[in-house]
């Protein structure tokens, strides 16, 4: 149904797609994978009309697509793309978002809201989703927002739907609902292209998978013929070794951080301990209260009750600076929102915390720069210079900068919330390596992650939460996805 042939694309003189071929049949679910920068999104943006191709041709249902077709034209042809960052208007209703710029009008030319709501409800019903079309998008959960995006795409009589990392912000259960929906669409004859970093997902839901590497087409395979491991090898171009963590082997009495009886509207009497050099994971569904718990520990969120002990001594933490002075560190889940000042350079971002900790009025330009250079080397941050703006770095390198401010400040307990979200496979392994090195140096590590394979591969102990409570604790030796899901859903 779709055939893209010999696609080339350059940005600012750098060719990012080299002669790429890509085709999808009617009703086919095609996984698309590759490291960050492999050209997946660029290829799909060409398909959906966001970018214009330099060379090659796109044939859809035996028609050659005009070279510089707009996204709207492509939607009318039957190709829609759901971008990684959802493009919904928060202040408008679900129905208004679905029918944006195509609102059904009455005889007077004014919008016929009744008809719009009915039609929107009809489309949502087809998806098996019960969202009130009059609700504002602002009030929806991420998974529901995604449903609205899909509903919008379907309202165009879509025949090919492209989804760029649709599961990166979803919980396991929501992901399952999405996959059921994708299979459903496929059964109706709608082809789905599905970009994901989670190879297992592609294998679970897809029919075929295409791998890109550095802008080159590598292979298209039937998913029944490949394993996740083989896919990862194709993406990286070298062997990837899957590791599994072993149990914590240090002194069980060397407790670095103890949290007692934290309660608020969401959290219900949570206690936990993490020991020096231990890598502790927090698993659970989104909404289980893991991030909120960490925000309480770090003084961002005010609890109704609860106490924190660092190295056995009680500390009062009312704000982030109190936590920082107690040698706690917190790499937040959304680096763009709460982790980095994107418009500033690496030196500033890496030193914000250590400047807080050191006395004095002046920041010490030379020594800050020296420290930054060393951390850039240690974490292998790929940048043109320490004075480069963080906004120009790739996701993995941004994450390393977000991490570096806590390393430079000498945090003894480091909380990492979704440490590899939006980070490609290569950089992901590097971040795991850094985490392991820190633990080996005696830093207590707490990892909050919705990515189960990630938890399984690096955590020595895992605490599972469900609706504000701890429902289970598992050592690495007794860990399995099934057990974690058992506790996470609290069945």
């Amino acid at each position: 149904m779709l055939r893209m042939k010999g696609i080339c694309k350059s940005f600012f003189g750098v060719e990012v797609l080299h002669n790429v071929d890509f085709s999808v049949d009617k009703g086919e679910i095609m996984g698309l994978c590759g490291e960050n920068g492999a050209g997946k999104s660029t290829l799909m943006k060409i398909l959906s009309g966001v970018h214009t191709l330099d060379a090659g041709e796109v044939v859809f249902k035996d028609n050659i697509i005009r070279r510089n077709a707009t996204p709207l034209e492509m939607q009318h042809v039957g190709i829609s793309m759901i971008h990684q960052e959802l493009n919904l208007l928060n202040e408008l209703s679900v129905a208004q978002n679905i029918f944006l710029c195509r609102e059904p009008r009455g005889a007077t030319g004014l919008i016929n809201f009744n008809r719009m709501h009915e039609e929107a409800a009809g489309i949502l019903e087809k998806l098996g989703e019960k969202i009130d079309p009059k609700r504002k998008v602002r009030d929806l959960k991420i998974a529901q927002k995604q449903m609205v995006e899909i509903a919008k795409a379907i309202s165009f009589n879509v025949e090919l739907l492209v989804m760029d990392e649709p599961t990166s912000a979803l919980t396991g259960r929501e992901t399952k609902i999405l996959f059921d929906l994708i299979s459903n669409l496929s059964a109706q004859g709608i082809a789905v292209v599905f970009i994901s970093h989670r190879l297992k997902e592609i294998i679970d839901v897809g029919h075929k998978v295409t791998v890109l590497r550095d802008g080159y087409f590598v292979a298209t395979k039937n998913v029944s013929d490949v394993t996740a491991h083989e896919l990862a090898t194709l993406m990286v171009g070298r062997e990837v070794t899957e590791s599994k963590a072993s149990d914590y082997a240090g002194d069980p009495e060397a407790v670095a951080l103890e949290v007692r009886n934290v309660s608020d509207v969401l959290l219900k009497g949570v206690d936990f301990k993490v020991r020096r050099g231990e890598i502790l994971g927090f698993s659970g569904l989104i909404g289980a209260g893991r991030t909120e718990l960490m925000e309480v520990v770090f003084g961002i969120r005010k609890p109704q009750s609860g106490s924190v002990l660092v190295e056995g001594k009680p500390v009062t933490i009312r704000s982030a600076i109190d936590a920082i002075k107690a040698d706690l560190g917190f790499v937040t889940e959304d680096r763009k929102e709460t982790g980095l000042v994107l418009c500033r350079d690496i030196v500033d971002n890496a030193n914000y915390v250590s400047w807080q900790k050191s006395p004095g009025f002046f920041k010490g330009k030379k020594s800050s720069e020296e420290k930054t250079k060393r951390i850039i080397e240690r974490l292998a941050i790929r940048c043109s210079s320490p004075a480069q703006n963080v906004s120009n770095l790739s996701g993995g390198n941004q994450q390393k900068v977000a991490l570096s401010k806590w390393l430079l400040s000498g945090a003894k307990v480091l909380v990492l919330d979704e440490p590899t979200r939006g980070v490609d496979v290569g950089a992901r392994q590097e971040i795991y390596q850094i985490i392991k090195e820190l633990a080996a140096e005696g830093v207590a590590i707490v990892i909050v992650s919705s990515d189960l394979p990630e938890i399984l591969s690096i955590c020595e102990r895992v605490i599972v939460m469900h609706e504000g409570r701890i429902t289970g604790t598992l050592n690495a030796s007794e860990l399995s996805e099934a057990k974690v899901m058992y506790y996470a859903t609290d069945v």
Partner: protein
Amino acid sequence: MLAVEKRSESGALELLKRIWRDYSVLLVFGAIIVICGIAAPRFINPDNLLNILRNTSTVGAIALGMTFVIIAGGIDLSSGPVLATAGAVLILLQRMVNPDGTPVVPLAVAILACLAVATAFGFVNGIIISKAKLPPFIVTLAVGIIARSLVMYFMRGATVMGNNIPQFTGIGNGSVFNVPIPFIVVIVIAIVFHIILTRTKFGTYVFAVGGNENAALYSGIKVDRIRIATYMLVGLCTGVAATIEMSRMAAVAAATSGSQYEFEAITAVIVGGTSLTGGKGRLIGSIVGFIILGIVNNMMIMLNISPYLSGAVKGAVILFAVLMQRRER
């Protein structure tokens, strides 16, 4: 061979681009001076140039503080009325004389009171903005309206003359080695502020707060304190501007003193390349910015253009400057 040549060419282009990015304000500034000199040869006259510097110093002082506020993601629309209020305090204290002709309040104390009043207004702005979490635009607008109204009320809308003594008028009208004292004051403040902005932790945090308030908060930066401090800085600068303005006139006009100065200062900051969205900016740009505004005013007179058109020209300057900055991005 070809590839190597190509690279060196693009290298030179890169260099030019970088020069333009870092020094575009200064290059435009140089061009403006040359063009003005050709259009009106009298413009180049040293007396005229020094006069421009003297005239722009009041707005210039405010622009220096305003740079901090805008980098931190805020804005201050109360500067003009605050200048009038602080100026009124200075004049009212300064004009009180004993029967033997000596001042009741020493001049230095009167000036300190003026600076303190202006800084206090900054503190009020900052505390409302950060604690009540209200938009700075609204808060400073309201505080400005209140300040203007109070000064009108207490002075019954009149112009009040100060004690016209050389110790006082010399501040605004005097020169050292031909350089106007107000300009020297502004440059000294500018140097200190530049060091604060680029070399101190506080300066870095100002950028961080304007760039991403949440990330600053999660890094332990006391966002509220930083923000309040920036408003106090612009307040202090407004106090300095008030002192200069009052000593030049030896009088304060309840209705018109400092009128529109906040907009002139904001214009100077924007023309100087500081981003209104916060997180980006340079002090040197603001200095060039207020001098450009001074040159515009001066050229209007030189070329015998109606003063009513000065707003049209300044508006065009703002649009042009912002347009240039957009294109750079």
